[in-house]
């Protein structure tokens, strides 16, 4: 696939493209892995942004201008991301979309800050759709960065809120990857549980090296013998899948509350064994009540991109908020758009979302869901999918976390 | 009595159960040209490897100018003034002839492991390199890659590297093996000139060469020295005849 001029887009929007020729183009650079082992996660989001842009363009664009989303393959490498960032700026992109890998996001925030400081008049904005390190909207917060996903502490608040309501859970086991993110997840779980349910005992706090464990069975057996009633993990990628496979295989039957259980392939690799075992916290699942219009969108996405599922609803949120902000500001230039985004609230298919002005962190309800065979939309092309659990809706207020952000704003 | 240049004292070497060198004792005086002969598999190369430090003896000692070198690594022994050549050409194949010789010269010219000097700008090194090349009649092939040299020249280069460092004890392992008559003559001439004023230990199969060059000869059979004598003495030694019977040409037959 030529990421610069994707043929899908060309074919699907050829009519619009002719119209677009007269209008200006707003260029957005999607900087994420599009090849290599993490290629699929990048591509699932890339296709979402493209479809969202396509719909916006079909509805007349932004103030009459068309959006063009172009992919830049960063191979989840911070340095390569900076190379691609320079290419994107050269190509005229003023908006950067990225989400895979906190290290990449951190590098991009730094680079965007420096670029904007060193090149006044050529500012760029960074829309982060998935990098969840809390620091990005706390001590590292930046006027140029907007996060469209709940950060790790918010997701943990969702999980701990749900656990707090479950009196049958008396002990919790924490397992995660041994690096900044995994450690932050464990710390957040400990402090929030201590606050919400001081009676719950943390029976294990395990950190394993990132991406190095092939067989999780010994870890699972530690979990089982600890007698934990629930497990919390921030694991992602292969670490997540292998952990869950080992759990299913060893007959573990307590809830595994995950951040990334919804990532591609996790449900299908577990199969039926995932039912009642694998939970996730997310801003949305396709099996929530929604309008027919939204159902049609989910089906359109599946038809166009059969390898992937409608997962990145936040791509639509980000794009819709951008459109709303640009229309409110009457301009698609980064600074007015950024100012208009601050405090902006939109109504989307599953409720409302607000961009908090102090730290540029989106605020929205969260949902705890579990793998089930009784669903409208399955994932990974099988019949299993995500079903909202009892009391699984975490309100925007409950999920909200304070921020330490002290932002410097341009004039 | 002067200190021997090289002295072996009750030297033994075993590989597992196999005893390859058995109680070898030998003194070689400074300036002597000493040849070691013996049938195939007698342990001649093993003896060289023991002396030059490639192997450590199972027991016994090797002394160089009275200093015990038995447990020293080869490069330390080389620094004390002992140099050796190999039976199979053992040269730096990807370098030119000149560079090969220059490597051999480096250490004696006090270049050490220097990384702050330009190798090409040291006149003394160039001078010495040229001398050695000239000495070994390799000067006209100086810039030929060593791997492309004809066989006889590779053997000459082997000797050139060996003598380049200016060692005063030189061990040559079958320097003329596989050469034609005229090439052998050239090699013997080279060896004679190269070992002028030095101590030479040579292993050779070509008896003509041995009896031409050597001041004394030792005969090694099954890891033991059965005789050490002047060439005439060896020629008349019954035990030597016994050992060589049916193996190789007898000494008398090749003297002509």
């Amino acid at each position: 696939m030529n990421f610069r001029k994707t043929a899908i887009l060309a074919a699907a929007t050829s009519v619009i493209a002719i119209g677009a020729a007269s209008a200006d183009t707003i260029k957005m650079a999607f900087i994420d892995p599009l090849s290599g082992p993490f290629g699929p996660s990048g591509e699932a989001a890339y296709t979402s942004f493209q479809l969202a842009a396509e719909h916006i363009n079909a509805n007349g664009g932004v103030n009459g201008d068309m959006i063009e989303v172009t992919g830049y393959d960063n191979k989840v490498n911070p340095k390569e991301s900076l190379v691609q960032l320079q290419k994107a700026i050269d190509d005229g992109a003023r908006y950067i979309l990225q989400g895979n890998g906190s290290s990449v996001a951190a590098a991009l925030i730094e680079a965007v800050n420096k670029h904007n400081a060193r090149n006044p008049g050529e500012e760029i904005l960074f829309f982060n759709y998935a990098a969840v390190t809390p620091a990005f909207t706390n001590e590292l917060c930046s006027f140029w960065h907007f996060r469209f996903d709940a950060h790790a502490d918010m997701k943990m608040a969702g999980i701990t809120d749900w656990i707090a309501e479950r009196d049958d859970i008396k002990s919790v086991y924490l397992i995660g990857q041994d690096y900044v993110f995994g450690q932050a997840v464990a710390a957040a779980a400990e402090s929030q549980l201590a606050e919400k349910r001081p009676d719950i005992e943390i029976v294990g706090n395990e950190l394993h090296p990132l991406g190095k464990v092939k067989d999780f069975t010994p870890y699972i057996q530690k979990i089982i013998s600890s007698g934990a009633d629930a497990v919390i993990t921030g694991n992602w990628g292969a670490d997540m899948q292998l952990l869950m496979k080992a759990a299913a295989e060893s007959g573990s039957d307590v809830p595994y509350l995950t951040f990334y259980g919804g990532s591609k392939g996790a449900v299908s690799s577990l199969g039926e064994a995932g039912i009642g075992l694998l939970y996730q916290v997310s801003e949305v699942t396709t099996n929530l009540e929604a309008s027919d219009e939204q159902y049609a969108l989910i089906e359109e996405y599946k038809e166009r991109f059969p390898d992937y599922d409608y997962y990145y609803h936040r791509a639509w949120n980000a794009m819709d908020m951008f459109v709303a902000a640009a229309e409110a500001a009457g301009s698609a230039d980064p600074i007015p758009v950024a100012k208009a985004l601050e405090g902006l609230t939109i109504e989307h298919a599953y409720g409302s979302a607000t961009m908090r002005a102090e730290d540029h962190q989106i605020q929205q309800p969260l949902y705890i869901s579990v793998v089930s065979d009784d669903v409208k939309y399955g994932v990974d092309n099988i019949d299993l999918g995500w079903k909202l659990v009892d009391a699984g809706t975490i309100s925007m207020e409950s999920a909200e976390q304070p921020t330490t952000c002290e932002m410097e704003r341009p004039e | 009595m002067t200190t021997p240049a090289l002295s072996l004292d009750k030297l033994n070497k075993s590989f597992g159960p196999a005893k390859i060198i058995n109680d070898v004792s030998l003194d070689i005086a400074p300036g002597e040209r000493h040849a070691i002969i013996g049938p195939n598999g007698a342990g001649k190369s093993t003896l060289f490897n023991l002396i030059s430090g490639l192997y450590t003896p199972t027991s016994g000692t090797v002394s160089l100018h009275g200093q015990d070198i038995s447990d020293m690594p080869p490069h330390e022994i080389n620094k004390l003034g002992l140099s050796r050549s190999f039976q199979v050409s053992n040269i730096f194949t990807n370098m030119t002839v000149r560079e090969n010789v220059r490597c051999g010269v480096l250490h004696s010219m006090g270049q050490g492991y220097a990384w702050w000097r330009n190798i090409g700008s040291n006149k003394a090194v160039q001078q010495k390199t040229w001398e050695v090349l000239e000495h070994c009649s390799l000067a006209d092939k100086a810039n030929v890659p060593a791997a492309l040299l004809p066989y006889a020249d590779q053997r000459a280069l082997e000797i050139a590297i060996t003598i380049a460092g200016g060692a005063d004890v030189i061990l040559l392992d079958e320097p003329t093996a596989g050469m034609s008559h005229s090439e052998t003559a050239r090699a013997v001439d080279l060896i004679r000139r190269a070992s002028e004023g030095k101590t030479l230990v040579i292993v050779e199969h070509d008896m003509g060469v041995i009896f031409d060059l050597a001041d004394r000869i030792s005969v090694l059979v099954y890891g033991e020295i059965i005789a050490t004598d002047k060439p005439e003495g060896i020629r008349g030694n019954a035990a030597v005849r016994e050992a060589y019977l049916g193996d190789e040409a007898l000494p008398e037959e090749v003297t002509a």
Partner: protein
Amino acid sequence: MSDATQTFQNLAPSAGAKFRQRTLPILIFAACLAAIPMVGPSRTFYTIAHQMGINIVFALSYNMILGKGGLLSFGHAVYFGFGGYVAMHAMNWIEDGSGLWAGFPVFFLPLVGFAGGALAGAIIGWPSCRKAGTTFAMISLGVAELVFAAAFMFDSFFGGEQGISGDRMNGVELFGLSMGPISEVYWFIAFWTVVGLVGMWAFTRTPLGKLSEATRDNAQRVQFIGYNPQRVRYLVFIFAGGFAGLAGGMAAVNYEIFTPDAMSLVPSGFVLIMAYVGGITYFVGPIFGAILLTYMQSMLSDFTEAWLLYLGVLFIAIVMFAPRGIAGIVFGIWDGLRGSNPGQYIAGLLMKLAGILLMLIGLIVLVEVSVRWSNGYGEVYEPFGMHLGHQNVLSWLIIVVTAVAGVALTRYASKDKEAA
């Protein structure tokens, strides 16, 4: 004696030849670097050029141990990383303005990187350089895994997954360079690329450099000319680590961030590929490799998502058919053109090139058609307005015909050459 002096000097290349072969290429290289900003290059151009400069130094440093030292390492990025991290920390000390660092110009940070890389080389090289060959390769692999794992455990030095970042626009300004805009950083990169290049070339001319080649060719013999091969390897290894660290320091200033990724097995493998594809038997080989592969890495991914596949094919083709790398091909062609029969040579060469081109077309069509079929988006490969779907007979016709014709043509050309 005067006669002898003349003779030995005649053995070495003449002053003119030295200038032509040694000084001139470096001058030309430097002149090209100096001329580049005059054409007003784009931000992308600068970015890629910087990456190339860093990779040139990195690949050359790798070739100090692989090409010149005969040591195959799977962990060279460790030294690049250490150099980069030390330089990154130094950059932050400059920003803090603490003590001596207050007066240290950012421009000279690569020297700090050199020290860091050399120190890491000195520590890790001590146990690993006692062996050569496969043992050395395996130790380097194990060490790389261990260091990478450690990078996630010691956050104060490595900064965890997010690494360490800094700001290069601090400290003393040199040569009127604020180091802010990318065009100013260019001079920094160009300067250190030339310094690294000249430094490593000069190293090959030192006694230690020559001994390194000797040890590669025949470690046993080196012992018998008075040198300890372990010590030769160790010293060379420290220098290779140092120059890798220099490249790391350049990268630290260029990107203003350093992450543990930079020391993983991936960049270690990449530098191996760069050096090998370029040609490890030539000093300039890794330079070709670094330029080509940097370009492929950053630009080829724009045109095809199968760029890794092309990279793999290129690498295997080089290993199998051109083990002396691109430099070997270039110098081979150069020699051929200056050979006895350039006309015939050119004819054979063109035939070969045409054959390779045909095979390449077949390969590209096959890969691109397959990739699109695999993605299942219903996308179709459309080069030059042709509509090549996986169900289109034309696609398969092109693939088969070009591949067969290409193979036949190259074979014919090679046979022809042998006959001639």
